[in-house]
């Protein structure tokens, strides 16, 4: 057995007290095995991975045994552990961009592994030879070829920001494999990447496992990722392993309630659209969106960077239209143009309803942290009331009914019910809510002004699978009950299939 974890408990000590992240976990891994560790955020799966690497922050402490090749890593000093890190056990993180040092050329960063371990004179029982500078570089270039990085010589001299996300992750993998480790811990290695790049990276990991026999512990929240390359799976929930087995067992015959939920969430049938209306909420004709790049020289005309060209589509009333594309394909810029936030476009954008409202990806960043939920939800109505009061004073006619403060409060409570949140949330602050709850508040906020047309920009991308499922169900219910029209922007084809009536793909 390569790795044996016995009764591992990890605790975090903070000002607020002790948080138990991992509560007595035992499992084993064989040489050359690919083990999937799946769970939602807060399940302790990442903490588990970091414990194996000896990378827990200073506020954490752990008990139990972590036997790597028979040696108990839990009893090792920093210095002893250091001999294993990068050499016998390596790790690939979620965010390749921030995980690489921005100021050092990627070739040098990978090469560092060799100076750290191969030239290391410490006797750790493995055959190590001294390498010259030229030999080290040759090894790095060879590894770059192995992980299929383009033009290894050129890439060697590049800085992280000059590479694409997929290339950065390949550099991270090259770095992790440089000293031929026996165990590779991949912590959400594909989560930050586009769908097609995700598949390439997973294939690469599988290939490495097949060729070099490196055991891989793949930590992920995404069952599809696990299903694609793993042999065995651990399902973690609230710091415990709730189910374990082979991929086939878990997927075809799940025993635990939570595992069943996870699998249900990804096995959803595509939506059968039964819409037959011809009324449109939004028409987009010959839309070309661009950015103006300011010129450096006085008098020179600004250049245009075209984001998308000659787009034609319409969103029908009561329809959810999906807009799918890779990151950088201009999805968000198009939505900003439709909202009127981006002025540099040609063509026509015709609104047949009130101006659309927006739901963003980052549910916390879009809520004012200093205000209570009740205040946040009431704000659009207050602004409306102020606007009409001003209009009335200016002598305008056709003033609609202006809501009194009591009516506004009632409407807020009503909206909370619609997004399935308890009424007492009016007195809560955003930080007291979970990610899913916050996103429900954002949906409520978008609907507050009475708009029947919503643009949702990756509304579930940063949520856990089971929470995603709930939010998507809510959006579908709102579509049915309120006759909501929606432009649904996402990079995730599976999510789009589930909720959208029609889909547009961006190149």
């Amino acid at each position, binding site marked *: 057995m390569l790795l044996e974890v016995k009764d591992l408990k990890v605790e975090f000590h903070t000002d607020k007290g002790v948080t138990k992240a991992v509560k007595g976990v035992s499992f084993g891994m064989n040489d050359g095995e690919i083990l999937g560790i799946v769970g939602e955020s807060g399940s302790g799966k990442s903490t588990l991975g970091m414990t194996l690497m000896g990378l827990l922050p200073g506020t954490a402490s752990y008990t139990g045994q972590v036997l790597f090749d028979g040696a108990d890593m839990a009893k090792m000093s920093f210095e002893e552990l250091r001999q294993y890190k990068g050499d016998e056990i390596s790790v690939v993180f979620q965010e390749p961009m921030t995980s690489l*040092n*921005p100021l050092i050329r990627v070739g040098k960063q990978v090469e560092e592994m060799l100076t750290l371990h191969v030239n290391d004179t410490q006797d750790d029982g493995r055959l190590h030879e001294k390498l010259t500078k030229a030999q080290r570089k040759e090894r790095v270039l060879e590894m770059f070829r192995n992980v299929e990085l383009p033009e290894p010589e050129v890439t060697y001299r590049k800085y992280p*920001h000059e590479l694409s996300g997929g290339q950065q992750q390949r550099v991270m993998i090259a770095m992790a494999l440089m000293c031929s480790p026996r165990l590779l811990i991949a912590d959400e290695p594909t989560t930050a990447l586009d769908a097609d790049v995700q598949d390439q990276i997973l294939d690469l990991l599988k290939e490495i496992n097949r060729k070099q026999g490196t055991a891989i512990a793949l930590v992920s929240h995404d069952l599809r990722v696990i299903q694609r390359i793993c042999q065995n799976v651990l399902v973690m929930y609230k710091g415990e392993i709730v189910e374990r087995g082979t991929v086939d067992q878990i997927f075809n015959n799940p025993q635990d309630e939570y595992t069943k939920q996870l699998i249900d969430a990804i096995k959803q049938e595509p939506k059968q659209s039964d819409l037959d209306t011809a009324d449109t909420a939004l028409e987009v004709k010959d839309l070309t969106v661009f950015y103006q790049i300011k010129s450096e020289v006085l008098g020179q005309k600004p250049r245009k960077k075209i984001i998308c060209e000659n787009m034609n589509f319409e969103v029908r009333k009561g329809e959810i239209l999906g807009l799918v594309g890779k990151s950088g394909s201009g999805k968000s810029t198009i939505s900003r143009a439709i909202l009127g936030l981006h002025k540099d476009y040609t063509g026509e954008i015709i609104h047949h309803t009130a101006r659309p409202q927006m739901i963003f990806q980052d549910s916390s960043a879009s809520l004012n942290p200093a205000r209570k939920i009740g205040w946040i939800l009431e704000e659009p109505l207050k602004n409306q009331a102020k606007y009409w009061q001003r209009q009335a004073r200016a002598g305008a006619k056709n003033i609609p009914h202006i809501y009194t403060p009591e009516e506004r409060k009632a409407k807020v409570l009503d909206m909370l019910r619609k997004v399935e949140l308890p009424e007492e949330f009016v007195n809560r602050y955003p930080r007291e809510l979970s990610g899913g709850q916050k996103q429900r508040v954002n949906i409520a906020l978008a609907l507050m002004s009475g708009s029947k047309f919503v643009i949702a920009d990756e509304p579930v991308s940063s949520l856990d699978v089971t929470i995603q499922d709930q939010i998507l169900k809510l959006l579908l219910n709102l579509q049915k009950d309120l006759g909501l029209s929606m432009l649904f922007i996402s990079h995730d084809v599976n999510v789009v299939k589930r909720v959208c009536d029609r889909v547009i793909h961006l190149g």
Partner: protein
Amino acid sequence: MKYVLKKILTLIIALLLISIVVFLAFSVIPGDAAISKLGTEATPERIAELREMLGLDKPILERYFIWLGNAVQLDFGTSYQYNVSVNSLLGTRIINSSILSIISFIMVIVFSIPIGIFSAKRRSVPGRTAMTTITQITMGVPSFFLGVLITYLFSIILKMFRLGDFVSPADSFWGACAYLVFPAIAIALPKIAMTVKFLTTSIRAELHKDYVRTAYAKGHTKNGVLYGHVLKNSLVPVITFMGVIVAEIVAGSIIVEKVFSVPGVGTLLITAITNRDYPVVEAVVLLFAFLIIVINFIVDMIYKIVDPRVKI
């Protein structure tokens, strides 16, 4: 290249605006060079005569354009007070002041980086509190007051130098440096404290970044992570901060030169202002402005070299 042209254009515009402001300021405040030179006892005829001689009777706009015409050719006129050309007046003093500023700047670099690293490494609460207290106090003491303390300590008690015994660098370069070390300490100390604080914060912020975790995962030692990865990243914002520090050193030297009786640009500026000697004031202010803009330009350039993500 475009960037350089743009910077030069900014430089010219800034210098023009500053020269106008100084000219206006001098026409607004009461008193002029003729009165301050002849004293309050002088007869009105005598004052009028001198004013005509100095060209002070001409309208302000005309005076400005005459001055500007000469200044473009790097001729800053004649000092009213000393009756010699401003250029010759500035010549040696620029050298004295430059040596003082350079010594101060070297002190800031040499001391604040190691102290900053030392301070960032303190993990215990008492260690951190001690470092913060020391830097806060040092930061808060004004340079001229430090100057008085240093004079007292090094000159009167330790007798390491005699106040006012400044040797011109033309006679003995090292002699001049040996004297200027003391005012330089007065100027540099608060700036060192500021830089230490800035660097400490910067290093601590970097330590939480993802790439640090990667560096540990590679099997680096703690020092390997700090010196191999963190330090360079945490020095990037310090480079920008250095631009501010240099400007502060130049400005701070004005008063400190006076305290230590160093015949530098600062001392000259103070007497010139009291005597309404505006050809001198104009020249010194423009010199300072020019220096600060050029230094900021150099900082931008260094920034670009150190951080490959920066595009100019």
